[in-house]
C-alpha cells in the first residue's frame, strides 16, 4: 500500500541577504524619520509662537500667557532638536572610531 510522506512541520530557517540588511536599513530609516518629525514639529511650534506674538502686539488678543507659553514651547523644541542632533553626531563618531 502506498505510504504518503509526512509533510515537514518544522519551518526551515533560510538565511538570505535581505533578512540581514533590513534591520540596519530599517534602523537608518527610523532615525531619519524621527529627526524629520522633530524638525517638522519644531517648525510648527515656531510658527505658533510667531502668530501669538503678532496677535499680542497688534492688540487682537489681550492674553499674554498664550504668547509667552508659545515662545517657551518653541524654545524647548529647539533644545530638543539640538540634543537629538548631538546624539546622532556622537553615535556617528563612535562608529567611525571602530577599528576594523
Amino acid at each position, binding site marked *: 500500500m502506498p505510504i504518503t510522506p509526512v509533510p515537514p512541520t518544522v519551518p526551515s530557517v533560510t538565511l538570505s541577504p535581505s533578512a540581514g540588511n533590513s534591520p540596519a536599513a530599517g534602523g537608518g530609516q527610523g532615525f531619519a524619520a524621527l529627526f524629520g518629525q522633530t524638525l517638522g514639529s519644531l517648525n510648527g*511650534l515656531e510658527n505658533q509662537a510667531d502668530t501669538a506674538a503678532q496677535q499680542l502686539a497688534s492688540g487682537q488678543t489681550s492674553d499674554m500667557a498664550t504668547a509667552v*507659553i508659545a515662545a517657551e514651547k518653541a524654545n*524647548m523644541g529647539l*533644545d530638543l532638536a539640538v540634543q537629538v542632533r548631538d546624539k546622532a553626531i556622537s553615535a556617528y563618531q563612535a562608529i567611525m572610531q571602530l577599528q576594523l
Partner: protein
Amino acid sequence: MLFAALDTSASGLTAERLRMDVVSDNLANAQTTRTPGGGPFRREMVQFMAVPLSVDGSGGVVVSGIVQDQSPFPLQYDPGSPDANAQGYVQLPNVNVTAEMVDMLAASRAYEANATAFSDNVKESQKALEI
C-alpha cells in the same frame, strides 16, 4: 503632540485670567442701577468645564460660558432717585463686594499656582534633555 502637558497649565492660566476679568467687571458695576437691557446690573459668574485627560497628558479646563447670578436684587428706599419704582425703592445690583474681593484673591492665587506648575513642567523637560 509635542509638549502636550504644557497646554494643561496654559488652559488654567487662560481660565483664571477670564475669571479675574469677570470679577473686575462685577466690581466696576457694583453700583450700576441701569443697563442697556433695562434693570440694574446682574452679577456675572464664569462656568468652568474640565477637558478629559488624554494619554499624552493634555487635559485642562475650558470656559463653558459666562452666566448671570439669578439671586434677587437688594432694594433701597430712595424716592428721589430717577430709578425708583412706584413705591420709592431702587433696585441695586446683587454684587457683594466682599465676596468679589475674596474671589479675586482666589483667582490670582490659582493663576500663580498654574504658572508655577508650568515652569516646573519646563524644568522637568529640561532635565530629560540632559540625559
